[in-house]
């Protein structure tokens, strides 16, 4: 408890430093902008130095906050050591899954790795956008923003399969010139499941082997419980789950004290992640 208090106090110090320099930056730019009206335009540039310092301070606070909080909150729930990689997933990992929509801008952070009851878990935030510029205007469309999870799976997965929500024009993975494994659409016995999802698999037999009637029911229940678009993938002996929540979780605010952040920290997502292991029966039987 004392240790936690010491860490929180230290973090609070970093937060206040970040807030101080952010305030200085804003004030300096504001004064510079006002003085620029008088003709001394270069004075706006005075704000650049505090902006650089503020950027560094904010980054340092964020890094320490996440390294402490994320790791400790996950360790509290899972009762196992946790590794935090702030750089998130690599772009190639996500792109080569052919699971979530593509774009020309990729961002990822907060990759948490742990092992729970024999199940390897990776969880990270991913944002994919398409930015188009016509010269006069720039349009940014967010194709995916949410959580991307990769689990080890108790069955042998030798082929490739993706499960996406039903789309009118179809949503077959990959394109004509992509390296995506060749897939065909698979229909199952459950009419409700076929209405909710499109399944594309490189091997029909393995599709039926992985998607048992019980597993299909779990997927449908998961989707009904979530109000967001969901994606599932089976590849390279991994089970991928992506949820398009529209949010990047665990982002700290320099405006809120660290003690308040700690007491308000919502562990809901972490408990949901733990529940998924039971729901999808990811533990070896």
């Amino acid at each position: 408890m004392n240790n936690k208090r010491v860490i929180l106090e230290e973090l609070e110090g970093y937060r206040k430093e970040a807030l101080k320099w952010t305030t200085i930056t804003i004030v300096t730019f504001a004064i510079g902008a006002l003085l620029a009206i008088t003709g001394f335009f270069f004075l706006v540039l005075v704000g650049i130095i505090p902006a650089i310092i503020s950027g560094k301070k904010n980054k340092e606070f964020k890094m320490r906050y996440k390294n402490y909080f994320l790791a400790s909150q996950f360790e509290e729930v899972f009762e196992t050591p946790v590794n935090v990689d702030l750089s998130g997933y690599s772009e190639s990992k996500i792109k080569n899954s052919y699971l979530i929509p593509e774009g020309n801008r990729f961002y990822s952070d907060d990759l948490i790795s742990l092992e729970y009851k024999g199940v390897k878990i990776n969880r990270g935030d991913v944002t994919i956008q398409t930015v188009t510029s016509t010269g006069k205007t720039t349009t940014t469309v967010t194709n995916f923003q949410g959580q991307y999870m990769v689990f080890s799976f108790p069955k042998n997965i030798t082929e490739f399969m993706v499960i996406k929500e039903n789309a009118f024009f179809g949503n077959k993975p990959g394109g004509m010139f992509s390296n995506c494994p060749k897939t065909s659409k698979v229909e199952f016995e459950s009419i409700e499941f076929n209405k909710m999802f499109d399944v594309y698999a490189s091997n029909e037999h393995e599709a039926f082997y992985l998607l048992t009637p019980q597993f299909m029911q779990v997927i449908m229940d998961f989707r009904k419980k979530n109000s967001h678009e969901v994606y599932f993938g089976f590849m390279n002996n991994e089970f991928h789950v992506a949820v398009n929540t529209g949010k990047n979780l665990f982002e700290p605010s320099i405006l809120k004290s660290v003690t308040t952040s700690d007491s308000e920290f919502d562990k809901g997502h972490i408990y949901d992640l733990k529940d998924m292991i039971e729901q999808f029966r990811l533990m070896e039987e």
Partner: protein
Amino acid sequence: MEMIWIVIGIVVIVGFMIINIYNQLVKYKIKVEEGASGIDVALVKRYDTITNLVECVKGYAKHETETLEKVIELRNSMSMKEKSNLENQYSETQTKLFAIAEAYPDLKASTNFEQLQKSIFDVEEHLQAARRLYNSNVSIFNQKVEMFPSNLIASIMKFSKFDFFEANENEKQNVNIQI
């Protein structure tokens, strides 16, 4: 003159429709045959695991295993009904073997028996998958054979319905083998 072109157009369209229907029937017939082949592969694996299990249990309980019926091997000439009966036999033999193993804690604790249990579970899941895939393709094919207008082409070209691979009674009741 115009009438001739309209008639030619109708003939061409109908011709393409007939070709398309015929190709669909052939495609699903091949898929059914592939599915049947998948069932055969799964049944062969099941036979192998059952015979390994018999050998494993025999090492501990020779007398009890002698009373079991000989496990029949899959033959190419078997119909789908016969294969379904074969699967029933495998399930019954397996249940009896596990019942015998209950009386022998050393056998249940052996690594070989544990590994066989895992592989039996996996083989059963593959057989289930093969059956569901086969039945799915049979359902689509049989619908095409019965429904208009593909039933016309089917009867002219002598396509006939396939039998489903029925689940055995044990699996219908969701018997859970506890060791």
